[in-house]
């Protein structure tokens, strides 16, 4: 277990020791050896860890009934639009002024058809205002609607202690314990809240330098740079790294920030099927053989954009295979660990540690502090040359204000807790608690007969609902039972696969999880959600095993 004396041995000694061990491929962090981990791999080329993912398909009648439901919604949508257009009903959406009727239309009515007619009817399940810290439980402001969700009003009451299954609070650092936040309060007094400058002008504080060194040490890389906003980390730095004449190979289900960054860069974008190594390899082969579209020249750079954990599916990237592919075809790898940093891995260092690989295998390690660290902002880490390049060329460094000091201090204290540098084993306990909670929750859901997507080790648990009518019913009834869930429907997910997404946290106690599971059991029977035809086994892979040669 963690040995506090080894940590306090002297900063320099610890640092040297870590460097040595990283070179030999075995990492010894906080005095814990890899041997304790169940499938500890020290060579790091291809992990022998069991990779169990589920993507079970529902019976055919479910898809048919889903389309029937959407059909009914669409028909009534047309009816209501007709009534609104002919003045039989009051119009609540934005419309132009009477004087501007002959101008070019400002609002394209049909584009918002889905929002107006389907989303509005169940809108009370989203954007619920909370009035406490989003820890394992929170307080909600009660609101009612008089005109079917077009407007809301607050009754003045609060619903207390709603179990929070929607916040990305993986390690439970969203807390208000005054003891834990001592250093943050001190820094707030010392530095204030605003920076009022960009990194390149006067916005680089000693706090940023300290944080960047700590992030680099945490991840086991040479250097890191932090940014004030997680979304902007992706969208502003990908254009700095690639440009015209480069090729981006991006996963089907990548987050909007990655898609936006890729589009802003001006490079050619090709999409490969989600987590499908064969599809990626075919794209790489075509890229190398055929080159750029008209001139047939070689691509200046080929970069693969993947995420550590995909937030809508709960699947984990197949990192060992992708790294072997990238080595074979000489491409670069950009790994977005927004949901996986702090949440997977034996000591919370992300998917790189989860697969037992060397952080040097990934060219650009990106992550956010919003999820596991209870703060805000993002980082990019990797070789010193890369980070130095980003310090001068990133749009964020030139134009965006830097991260504010109290937030930086929150990240520092969370990371120190996680690494064990504060002298306790609390960080490691949190990571292990999260792992236990995740496995327990997923196992029980599978046993109950729900269709749950994703990897067995990912704390993001999507439970499939399929039919549009059930989305609203599920969320409302869970709130009646004092459990707050996030439901997702059409634009964010494929049209037939709407889901409820649970985010397990280390701060959830076993009793809270049992309450949620019992409520799910009851609601699953009442709403008829238990579609699974298997009740404990993993569904066989939906695509054939990819065969590819491995180069050592």
């Amino acid at each position: 277990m963690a040995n506090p004396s080894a940590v306090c041995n002297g900063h320099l000694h610890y640092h040297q020791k870590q460097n040595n061990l990283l070179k030999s491929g075995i990492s010894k962090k906080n005095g814990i050896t890899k041997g304790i981990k169940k499938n500890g791999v020290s060579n790091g080329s291809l992990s022998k860890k069991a990779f169990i993912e589920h993507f079970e398909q529902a019976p055919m009648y479910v898809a048919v009934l889903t389309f029937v439901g959407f059909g009914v919604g669409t028909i009534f949508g047309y009816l209501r639009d007709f009534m609104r257009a002919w003045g039989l009903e009051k119009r609540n959406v934005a419309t132009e002024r009477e004087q501007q009727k002959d101008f070019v239309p400002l609002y394209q009515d049909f584009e918002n058809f889905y929002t107006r007619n389907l989303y509005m009817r169940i809108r009370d399940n989203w954007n619920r205002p909370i009035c406490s810290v989003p820890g394992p439980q929170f307080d909600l402001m009660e609101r009612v609607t008089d005109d079917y969700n077009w407007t809301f009003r607050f009754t003045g009451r609060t619903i207390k202690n709603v179990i929070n299954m929607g916040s990305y609070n993986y390690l439970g650092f969203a807390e208000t314990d005054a003891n834990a936040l001592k250093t943050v309060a001190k820094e707030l007094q010392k530095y204030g809240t605003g920076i009022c400058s960009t990194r390149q002008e006067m916005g680089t504080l000693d706090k940023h330098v300290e944080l960047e060194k700590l992030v680099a040490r945490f991840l086991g890389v040479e250097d890191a740079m932090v940014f004030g906003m997680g979304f902007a980390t992706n969208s502003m730095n990908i254009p700095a790294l690639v440009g015209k004449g480069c090729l981006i190979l991006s996963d089907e289900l990548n987050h909007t920030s990655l898609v936006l960054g890729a589009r802003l860069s001006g490079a050619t974008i090709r999409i490969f099927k989600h987590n499908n190594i064969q599809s990626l390899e075919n794209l790489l082969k075509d890229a190398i053989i055929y080159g750029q579209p008209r001139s047939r020249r070689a691509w200046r750079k080929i970069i693969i954009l993947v995420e550590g954990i995909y937030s809508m599916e709960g699947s984990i990237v197949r990192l060992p295979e992708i790294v072997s592919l990238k080595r074979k075809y000489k491409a670069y790898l950009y790994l977005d660990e927004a949901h996986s940093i702090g949440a997977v891995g034996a000591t919370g260092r992300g998917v790189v540690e989860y697969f037992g690989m060397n952080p040097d295998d990934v060219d650009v390690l990106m992550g956010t502090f919003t999820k596991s660290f209870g703060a805000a902002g993002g980082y990019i880490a990797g070789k010193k040359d890369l980070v130095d390049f980003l310090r001068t060329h990133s749009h964020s460094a030139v134009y965006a204000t830097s991260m504010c000091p109290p937030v930086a201090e929150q990240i520092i204290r969370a990371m120190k807790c996680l690494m064990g540098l504060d002298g306790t084993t609390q960080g490691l306990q949190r990571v292990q608690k999260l792992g236990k909670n995740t496995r327990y929750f997923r196992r029980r859901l599978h046993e109950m007969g729900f269709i749950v997507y994703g990897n067995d080790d990912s704390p993001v648990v999507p439970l499939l609902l399929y039919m549009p009518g059930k989305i609203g019913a599920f969320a409302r009834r869970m709130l009646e039972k004092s459990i707050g869930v996030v439901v997702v429907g059409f634009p964010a997910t494929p049209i037939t696969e709407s889901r409820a997404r649970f985010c397990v946290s280390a701060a959830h106690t076993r009793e809270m999880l049992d309450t949620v599971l019992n409520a799910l059991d009851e609601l699953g029977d009442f709403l008829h959600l238990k579609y699974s035809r298997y009740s404990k086994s993993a569904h066989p892979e939906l695509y054939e095993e990819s065969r590819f040669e491995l180069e050592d």
Partner: protein
Amino acid sequence: MDIKRVKDYFYWLYFQYLLITCSYVLEPWEQSMFHTITVTVFAMVLYTAYVFIPIHVRLAFEFFSQMFGGQPESTV
């Protein structure tokens, strides 16, 4: 107690129908309209079945029995 269970079961069936056809999200007047249309269509299907199926079954039976039963008669 039994009556309550039966009533709960029928309420559960009605609720499943609401969820499946997505009429759970509709406003009350839209729901009434949808229920009226559905019940009308369903009643028409039942009536058609009641009127036509026995006649068709009888005709089909006669047709097939003529085809198979008629052979021995003609050779004799």
